[in-house]
């Protein structure tokens, strides 16, 4: 019987591929945002509203859609004049760096200022996987519980921005938005918070400004 010392992180292979993805995105000068949320919080609707507004901000974009099955979200992106690729995980609850690496060849990265990666709807699994993005953006719809940040702390710990979506519904809900924001702030003081309604347009200007500022920071402008 012998002991073999290993001392290797289980995620080391994913981290290696994520670093390659990050280098490819950096070479193209594109800002990459990994959108994470539970199912139904409005990631695709936010993308649709964003695609409507990016051209006016002088920004070109690509979308990598992650879903267990169907190309429905990519169809919605294309209906708004967007372009991108669909990844079907076939049951997997998150995207991995390798899944993103596998589709990079099908994207003209040099033509994009911003790449959105819409992760599989799940608040737990995606938080463990670096895809090579510049920032994770977590969406939280106000139709969900206002104690969700504390219930799913890891994703808030990893995110640079929390988008509180569907605020147009607040008059109809017993949702304490200040409580949700306090929980995000306690979990991650560095996580910015944005209230918006992708459907009605409230807060969309600040979201576009946030993207523009992140892109400028990445390009050292």
């Amino acid at each position, binding site marked *: 019987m012998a*002991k073999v*010392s290993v*001392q*290797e992180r*289980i995620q080391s292979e994913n981290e290696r591929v994520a670093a390659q993805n990050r280098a490819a995105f950096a070479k193209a000068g594109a800002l990459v945002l990994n959108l994470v949320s539970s199912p139904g919080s409005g990631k695709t609707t936010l993308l649709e509203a964003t695609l409507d507004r990016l051209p006016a901000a002088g920004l070109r974009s690509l979308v990598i859609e992650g879903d267990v099955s169907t190309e429905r979200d990519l169809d919605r992106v294309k209906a708004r004049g967007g372009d991108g690729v669909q990844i079907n995980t076939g049951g997997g609850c*998150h995207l991995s760096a390798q899944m993103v690496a596998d589709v990079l060849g099908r994207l003209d990265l040099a033509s994009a200022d911003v790449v959105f990666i819409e992760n599989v709807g799940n608040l737990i699994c995606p938080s*463990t996987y670096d895809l090579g993005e510049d920032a994770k953006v977590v969406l939280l719809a106000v139709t969900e519980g206002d104690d969700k940040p504390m219930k799913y702390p890891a994703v808030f710990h990893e995110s640079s921005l929390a988008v509180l979506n569907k605020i147009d519904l607040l008059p109809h809900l017993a949702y304490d938005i200040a409580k949700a924001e306090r929980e995000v702030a306690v979990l991650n003081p560095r996580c910015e918070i944005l209230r918006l309604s992708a459907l009605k347009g409230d807060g969309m200007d600040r979201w576009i400004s946030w993207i523009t500022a992140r892109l400028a920071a990445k390009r050292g402008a």
Partner: protein
Amino acid sequence: MHELSICQSMLRVVDGAMKAHEGSKLLRIFADVGRGSTVEPQLLREAFDVLVTGGPYEGAELVINDIPLAGRCRSCGRAFEYREIALGCPACGSASVDIESGLELSVRELEIDD
């Protein structure tokens, strides 16, 4: 249930480490799993049982070293154990806390019969 893909990644790490010891039998895997790593030990064990069945590591045991989530407040310097990632300091309320352990997810050591 990302423990299945985490377990696949773990077994790839094991494959790499076993290459130099071809022909020997894997007896035990010692893995460090921090409580802030988002991996549920019981689900990792179940995934392990499924994935090693019928393969070269069948019969091997997964030993999980469950590492508490611990941090230190940057403001008052006190050390605490936490139930969740990056909560504020329970003593002075400061939100600025360094996590000192509990985020681990790694294969530490293998035990083989050669």
